[in-house]
């Protein structure tokens, strides 16, 4: 892979697509959901190598975000269906993804899903700017997983990462508005849910 070409097609729009917290003068409101611990502000690494803080950089403020968990190596074959549906949803949403809609796919296997593998994956699957594949320290990922509720109440089932939940949370932090949509439903269903979140 030509690195310059990769930078040209991937990283630069991504940098543009990430709203910079520092650029805003006014202190931004921390939502109730965040204050209740739904969005631990853990450091993460995106598939382009960029380092971000989960809440500060990815969630906070007035934007629609979609968050889900996945694995690069997905034993039950459900992750690729989710990713496929999201890639199509991204196309349906057009240039809104990266402008006021953002997708975040967080790995459940940070030990194996390194940023460089994620970068290849992102290229292969046509993951466009505005959508980040994210990994981080295992304990931070675990914190996120629990805070966002991707937990099976049966501890034995919960240990098996293949038993993950193919539902994405979507919402808008500034509006205090959060819902969920199945990533196994259709791309149209996912895109429409996002489009109709706000008035």
């Amino acid at each position, binding site marked *: 892979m030509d690195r310059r070409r990769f930078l040209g097609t991937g990283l630069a729009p991504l940098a543009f697509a990430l709203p910079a917290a520092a650029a805003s003068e006014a202190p931004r409101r921390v939502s109730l959901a965040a204050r209740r611990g739904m969005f631990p502000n853990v450091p993460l690494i995106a598939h382009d190598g960029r380092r971000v803080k989960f809440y500060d950089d990815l969630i906070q403020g007035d934007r629609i975000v979609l968050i889900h968990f996945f694995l690069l190596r997905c034993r039950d074959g459900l992750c690729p269906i989710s990713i496929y549906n999201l890639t199509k949803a991204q196309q349906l949403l057009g240039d809104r993804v990266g402008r006021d809609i953002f997708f975040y796919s967080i790995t459940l296997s*940070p030990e194996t899903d390194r940023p460089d*593998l994620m970068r*290849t994956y992102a290229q292969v699957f046509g993951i466009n700017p505005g959508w980040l594949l994210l990994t981080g320290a295992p304990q931070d990922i675990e914190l996120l997983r629990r*805070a966002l509720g991707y*937990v099976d109440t049966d501890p034995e089932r919960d240990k098996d990462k293949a038993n993950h939940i193919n539902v994405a949370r979507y919402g808008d932090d*500034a509006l205090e508005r959060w819902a*969920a949509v*199945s990533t196994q439903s259709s791309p149209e269903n996912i895109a429409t849910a996002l489009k109709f979140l706000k*008035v």
Partner: protein
Amino acid sequence: MKQRERLLQSTVDLHREITRERLTRRDLLKLGLLSSATGLLLPISGLSLRAAWAKDGGSGSSGSGSNSGSGSSGGTSGSCAIPAPFIGQSGWFTNPMPRLFEMTPLSSGIAGISGPTPGPHPVAGTNDSKLRCVADFPSTSGQWGLDKTTPYADLAHQAWADPNSKLYFPPVDFYELRAVQHNHRWHSQMPAGSKGQPAWGFAPPGFDETKHSIVPGPVFRTRYGRSHFVRIHNDLPATPVEDQVSPLGFGTPIITTHMHNLHTPAESDGNPLFWNYPGHFYDYHYPNVYAGVNQYGGIGDPREALGTLWYHDHKLDFTAQNVYAGLAGLNCIYDDLDAGDPTESTGLRLPCGDNYEFDVPLVFHDRAFDTRGVDYFPLACFDGAIGQDYTVNGVIRPYFDVSRRKYRFRLLDMGPSRFYWWFLQDSGGNNIPYTVIANDGNLLPAPVAVSTGVKQAVAERWDIVIDFSKFKPGDKIYLVNRAEQVDGRGPTGNLLRPGIAVLQFRVGGAPARKDNSMIPAKLRDLPDPVDLATAKRQTWTFKRSGGAWAVRGEPVNINLNTNDQYDRFATPYQIPEGTAEQWTIVNGGGSWSHPVHIHYEEHRFLGYNGTAPSPTVNPTEYSRKDVIRLDPNAKVEIAMRFRDYKGIYPMHCHNVVHEDHAMMIMWKIV
């Protein structure tokens, strides 16, 4: 469908190959599986990438890919953690149970409605942002133009538009409600004190938050044969209001109000897709007829009467949060049999009294408060939402003063996810029998005395009669929940010992007026059984699929049209008007309970795990129903008719957290 499945499968295969074989983008380009122009994946059906890769000389490990990871090193207490009750024992039974606000029709009738005068048809071509009726969808983008693409005839009130129709029942009574944010007092000992904390609810005209509770909403007392109309203004804040206390932190101000389970034309049913926006209103028209108008003429089959209904928010993906916010209320409907007669001398002579003094709704709703006493909704819990502060009519564990006479109580489980098992007990914990007269608002053929309680799932209603004349003045009698439930999945099935007393009845003196009411030996006949020989059969399996809910194995794609907009008028499952079907409702497994609700008509159980209820077997279930308490691994056979009005209705899990996670399908009467 086939095409899409193939596409998906090839993507799956490709993905497996990529992740196992460590293919690079260049490899994929070489293999012709990527378009270099767009970088987008071009799945090719039938090509095995593995084979191609092997041919190319590659090799790689094909490990299982799973990694046990770091285990449960998370530092949070878990998003489904259930907080301890905020109000402890010292606060129990210290607050009086509020009576619901009694709704009355506007004295000036249709002229009393704010905004454009209601009519059978929506106004065409208006530029007023407050559009009306079912055309109330923004068209600002030019794409959301339901009101531009749908013929106005489809948007008309079915029971109001055509005077020549058998189904024409124009409104007689007019009402108005406003969905608002107000402060609500859950208990006098909450730290927010007299001010309370924000909640959403339905405010009637003249609502005063210092005098009235906003949760639950007012109770309507309506009558079969007397059509009514409700305009609900959406005055909810469009963005969270940072007032002195706090915004709710959950819910959406985009709302739709379902009347559970009136025989209502689809456009007034409060379908999850028929929402409206802050600053708008929506007009609901309830013809108040029994099912079977086309079949029997007049106002239908009186054996199809309901009695206890409730209205609540039903917004797609947000029902649990919005009902939890407080958007729910009661509607009792009467007729010549269930007369609502203050003198208790006509019809069945069920307890009523002046101003319905002895006909009392009890709305049960469990809530979660944080350690500071601020209520919250567990947004990050997929299982369901339960709390341990039990409220009745909006107040935590209240008391209720009663006279020594008979009372009719209408028990409603407002959810979002708790199941109850109701016992009546004295102060010593001894069980006292009580009389069940209606299941899901439907009067039983005959009253049933129960001593082992009734189980209640979300949205189920039980009408019971308690005769307090058998107690002494000063006695304290308790309504006790004995269903053990430790998470949102459903009850464990265990009987709590002791139970949780939720409501205390304080027995007072003799009633001011002699108790003239009765519990007659016969209540309401059941309708003729469905002819199963001609009924179409369907099986619907409710289960978890990849952590998401699914009906029949299909995650729900809510009615989308070809422009990827919600289509509020189409669904693949169509049912001809005037027919009946036999449905098998199956719980697909796991330790989950699902209260399955089917809109529009009541159904009958043909068998619950193979057993048909009868006057001697499960007599309280020998009834018409609109919620199926689908226990783990249960299989329920029902028969249901689809008569009179047309349009789109849902069937969904009424553990509303499950519903919001796609446990819902739509069907349409055509």
